[in-house]
């Protein structure tokens, strides 16, 4: 049995706004084993990034709160760690790559200054000389296939292209032998050929270092090609979980099915009319299953109670009352 690295249990995240709370995450469950590549897919605004920000403890303060749930990373609850401990965690264990590399890098410092900081403040590198640290920075840039690392260390983010900036972000994230990499739409703001290069790079580095990766994307194609297991998320909770080939050959949840049918195919098969409606208002979220107002197969019970996960087989579970009898 593989070792559980990250275990998110019934996580709730609310945002305090004028007049009440936005109830965004509504009992999210997710489990990541060490060295595994997991995908997280869903429409814009369904809580993918919020979940991961909760794991990193970088939800906006003081508005974002976690009233319930646990995030267990290596037998420690991330939510109850002290500031110093969580900082150590971010430095040595978990890191995150964001969608927009331009916004993730500080425009007034050179790449070298930003990259060296990461190495300098790591406990593992205590007592190392500047020269050795610089060599580590050069090596890390070489590892992400950036040509001419010396020149890049001396340049500012604005002097690099989008693809190069994202590679720098990956180099920053991979410093210090992390065990979990959260990649939040790492290729979405880039061109397809560059996206392909970036995803292949993340895949290769993860294999080499036996690092677990959570790949967030709204593109089902990206998820299919680069992950082993997938969670489908809708409006703040997981609706389906399966191994990647299984999910794509046999999607069960009506939301997953609808999402798959929307994707334009290279074979030119007809696309459907899309999913009617939109992501719910989190101020007054729908009762029961949050997908029921948009669901073509809704039943009376869907409005009353949130469906639990039904285990279909060893590696496929779905949160939908349609499969109540099959588990």
């Amino acid at each position: 049995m593989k070792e559980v690295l990250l275990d998110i249990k019934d996580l709730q995240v609310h945002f305090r706004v004028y007049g009440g709370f936005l109830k965004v995450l509504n009992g999210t469950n997710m489990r990541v084993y060490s060295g595994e590549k997991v995908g997280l897919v869903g429409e814009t605004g369904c809580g993918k990034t919020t979940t991961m920000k909760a794991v990193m403890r970088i939800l906006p303060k003081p508005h974002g709160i976690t009233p319930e749930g646990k995030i267990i990373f290596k037998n420690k609850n991330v939510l109850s760690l002290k500031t110093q401990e969580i900082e150590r965690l971010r430095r040595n264990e978990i890191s995150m790559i964001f969608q927009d590399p331009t916004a993730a890098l500080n425009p007034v410092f050179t790449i070298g200054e930003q990259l060296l900081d990461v190495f300098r403040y790591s406990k593992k590198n205590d007592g190392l000389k500047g020269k050795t640290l610089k060599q580590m920075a050069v090596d890390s840039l070489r590892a992400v296939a950036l040509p001419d690392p010396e020149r890049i260390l001396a340049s500012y983010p604005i002097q690099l292209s989008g693809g190069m900036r994202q590679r720098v972000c990956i180099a920053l994230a991979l410093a210090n032998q992390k065990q979990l990499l959260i990649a939040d739409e790492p290729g979405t703001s880039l061109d397809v050929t560059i996206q392909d290069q970036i995803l292949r790079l993340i895949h290769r580095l993860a294999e080499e270092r036996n690092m677990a990766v959570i790949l967030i994307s709204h593109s089902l194609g990206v998820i299919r090609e680069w992950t082993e297991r997938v969670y489908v998320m809708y409006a703040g909770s997981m609706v389906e979980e399966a191994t990647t080939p299984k999910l794509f050959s046999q999607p069960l949840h009506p939301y997953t099915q609808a999402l798959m049918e929307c994707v334009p195919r290279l074979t030119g098969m007809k696309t459907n009319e899309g999913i009617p409606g939109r992501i719910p208002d989190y101020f007054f979220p729908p009762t029961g299953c949050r997908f029921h107002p948009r669901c073509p197969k809704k039943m009376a019970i869907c409005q009353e109670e949130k469906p639990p996960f039904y285990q279909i087989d060893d590696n496929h579970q779905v949160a939908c009352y349609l499969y109540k009898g099959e588990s």
Partner: protein
Amino acid sequence: MEELLKVEQLKKHFVTSRGIVQAVSEATFSITAGETLGLVGESGSGKSTVAYMVMGLYQPTDGNIRFKDKNIGKYHQKRPLELKKELQIVFQDPGSSLNPRRSVGKILELPLKIHRIDSQFNLRKRILDLLDMVGLPKEYETKYPSSLGGGEKQMVAIARALSTDPSLIVLDEPTSALDVSIQAKIINTLIRIQKERNLGYLFITHDLSLMRNIAHRVAIMYLGRIVEQALTKDFFETPLHPYTQMLLASIPVVSEEEEKIKPERITSVGEIPSPVNIPPGCVFHPRCPKKMDICSQEEPTMVEYKPGHFVRCYLY
């Protein structure tokens, strides 16, 4: 078939302090009524610049744009009102292309007034017809853009483009800011309206799988040049240019059948160079897996590989 738009040898160079940016160096294509031409390329390939020149937002440096057999390669200030009525555009981001301080009704009313489409008394009926055409309920007339979702805003932008009854619409990445679930609806609406009104579309996008579903012909741009142009079917069955093959191989797909269509994995390397320093010879040769000696010396010309399938590469 009637040729609506004909673009020949179009060029656009911008003079900047860092040198001359050759945004578009060679674009030749045509669109007939009722046809969709997909213009595909990476960012920086000059596809939007072509669209803006067609719309008259930029003055071309060289070349011809002919619309219904009249040369129209001039600035929008100099274009007659009747011409502007015929050509409309939908932009990528509906959040910034709709005036946040005007209601949907007012947004749709403005082009009707400018082009004196109908008398004052019929304006409201016209607006409701337009909303109905894009599938929005009539209550939306009084709503403001900020209270609409991204997909609904884009529908309003499409309704606005349709308001003057144009014969050609330029769609500049109309769905790339939206989710797939919303994209499907917009695409279906666009296809339906095209059939009803026999419209020509110049569809600009970077999403090739989307092109497979709506374009009749596809043109691929790389660094300001059209490198391949073909009927959609030929294009996806036999992609010729190494860049096209690289592009197709990079698309993440969702099914096994699609995987089979993709050309055998050509690993994408390098990035699109800056249009200030254009490589000599074939502009693609620094990234090309099949490059030969001649590629770095002389630029290839467009050849017709088979009827209707054009490619700019020494391999053919």
